[in-house]
């Protein structure tokens, strides 16, 4: 395994190693849930062994067939999806997918399983059982999938979210980290972020997709069969960077809770914005559909940036956004 070591090589270049509340990653690059399947769907197109962590698609207690098609539509610089959490369900996941994840973990990346649910009990049972597997380094809680009615409630109500996080945390193996994935579809994301931290979240990931709609102007109907969907891709990157910076300053930094930033990362420059805003981990989602190797090319670009900046570690950049004072003037693009 020469490559993962090279990704954390401190002798020739800046270190990319990051620490997510005690979960050590060789580098910050991760897949965003739902864009990289269960493990090896992109075999041959992406060297998953070089990732810092792999995040599975959302797992629910029962199999879910998902929404009727049409499930996706491209919008300018983005994509709207209403997949409906289609997944094979907890039992099949444990039986069929864990061996692949074990193999993947042996090759380098840490394993994070995303869990979704429709009731508190379902979250607790599903997360607890998955977290009992020693290869699962962290659970990421999907409390913000905008496609399934009840999911939105947990992610938007601070009190409900706090209770949910507390109960899930209590049901999990102690050294398995709990990541709470925040929804941007709230008035004040620092409220829900704070609730997740109070409930016992080890890490915050942000952001999930923005609830949105595209309309077929001839049929005068939504272009997705589901009506609404979640907007992702480069179109939402400035929105996501803003929310990360808000949560970092007002919640995460004071509480010492790391953030996994995501939302439209396609180039390394995008990733640097998230780091400066306060993200420790970086997840690539929609861009994987265009090029499954995106996290690797982003990582290589990050390395170059750090060297140019004279940094010995990527941690030198995290949260270094300067606000106030002289704003650098750049030509309006």
């Amino acid at each position: 395994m020469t490559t993962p070591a090279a990704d954390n090589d401190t002798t020739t270049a800046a270190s990319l190693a990051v620490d997510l509340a005690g979960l050590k990653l060789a580098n910050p690059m991760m897949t965003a849930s739902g864009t990289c399947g269960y493990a090896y769907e992109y075999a041959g197109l992406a060297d998953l062994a070089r990732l810092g962590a792999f995040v599975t698609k959302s797992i629910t207690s029962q199999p879910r067939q998902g929404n009727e098609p049409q499930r996706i539509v491209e919008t300018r610089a983005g994509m709207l999806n209403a997949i409906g959490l289609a997944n094979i369900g907890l039992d099949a996941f444990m039986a069929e997918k864990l061996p692949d994840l074990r193999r993947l973990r042996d090759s380098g990346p840490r394993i994070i399983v995303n869990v979704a649910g429709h009731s508190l009990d379902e979250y607790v049972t599903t997360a607890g059982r998955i977290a009992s597997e020693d290869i699962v380094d962290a659970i990421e809680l999907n409390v913000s999938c905008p496609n399934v009615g009840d999911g939105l409630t947990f992610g938007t109500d601070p009190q409900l979210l706090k209770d949910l996080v507390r109960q899930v945390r209590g049901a999990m193996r102690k050294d398995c980290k709990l990541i709470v994935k925040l929804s941007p579809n709230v008035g004040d994301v620092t409220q829900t972020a704070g609730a997740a931290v109070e409930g016992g979240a080890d890490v915050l990931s942000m952001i999930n997709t923005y609830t949105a709609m595209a309309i077929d102007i001839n049929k005068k109907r939504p272009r997705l069969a589901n009506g609404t969907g979640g907007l992702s891709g480069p179109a939402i990157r400035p929105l996501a960077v803003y929310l990360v910076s808000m949560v970092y300053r007002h919640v995460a930094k004071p509480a010492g809770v790391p953030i996994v930033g995501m939302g439209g990362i396609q180039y390394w420059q995008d990733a640097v914005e998230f780091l400066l805003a306060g993200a420790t981990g970086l997840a690539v989602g929609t861009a994987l559909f265009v090029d499954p190797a995106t996290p690797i090319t982003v990582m290589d670009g990050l390395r170059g940036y750090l060297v140019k900046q004279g940094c010995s570690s990527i941690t030198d950049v995290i949260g270094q956004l300067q606000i106030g004072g002289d704003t650098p003037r750049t030509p309006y693009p």
Partner: protein
Amino acid sequence: MIDAGTQDSESNATPGTHHRARFDAVVRFNRQVCREHYILRLALPGGFPATRPGQFVQLGCRPPDGAIDLDRLLCREHKWESGRGVVIEQQELCGSSAFLRRPFSLAGRGDDASGTWIDVIHRVVGVGTGWLAGLKEDDKVDLIGPLGNWFSLPRGKSIGLLVGGGVGLPPMFYLAQTLAQARWAAVGFVGATTADLLAVTFVEGVVPDQDGAVAQSVVQFAQLGYGAVVTTDDGSLGLRGRITDGLVRYLQSQSPEDAQQTVVFTCGPEAMMHAVADLAGRCGVACQVCLEQAMACGMGTCQSCVVRIGHDQDDSHGVAEDGRAWRYRLACSDGPIFEAQQVVW
């Protein structure tokens, strides 16, 4: 029968998911074949994995990342050209460009002295295909493939009826090449709403028959010795009517022995394929369809391109009006080719 492609007993160099990769293709030519349709030939200097008719590729329908210096551009160093002012080349600031890849069926493939090439036929319907239309010789195109399963040539069959409507024609051209190598008999059924939307080349001096008789009128079939039946909805060329109007005449004229030997292969708009599949079913003729559904990745990850396929086990996803149980399958990785009788339309 199960999924086409996976049970192809005559395969030797069987394509599989482990062969797919990302390639930097080079445009050999990009010719307009009719209104809105172009045939794009892409050279693959490093070679290309084994492919079969029915498989597809995902084309990046915008300048490949390597074609512009993003590092320079995103750091806001602009190029000044005398008389033009600042030249903004940063893609996300240059107006809209296609973000996701677009899937295209292979319309042909060749491995000759100059290397490997593949053909795709595209119709300009938006920003991505608009970009494709502007491609010129030696331009670069970012491509992932080959993807999906393929049409199967079942043992015991030897007559192929290739029914392609509109943008469903391309895989039929590639299939015709393969059928010719396998020494099958074949007839092409070619349809469009109107004559100038037929993405085919016509044999000079041979006029498609107005009554739907088979003629050596379409170059893509005639060069392999195969005849064709041309239909247009408005009667501007060939038989006036739907593609099934030509197909039904042919099927009714077949001997029972020939019908036994026949497979209908079809690709086109869903309503057309549904009608073709029903017709083949009524005539007792085997039929394989090439399905399409909006997709992002093309590799089974995004779970977007679901189609309803008959499923008689207890983990079905629903029951159709006719009582058939179905389960969602992915057009990209379980398909795009399915046995027509399995499809729950």
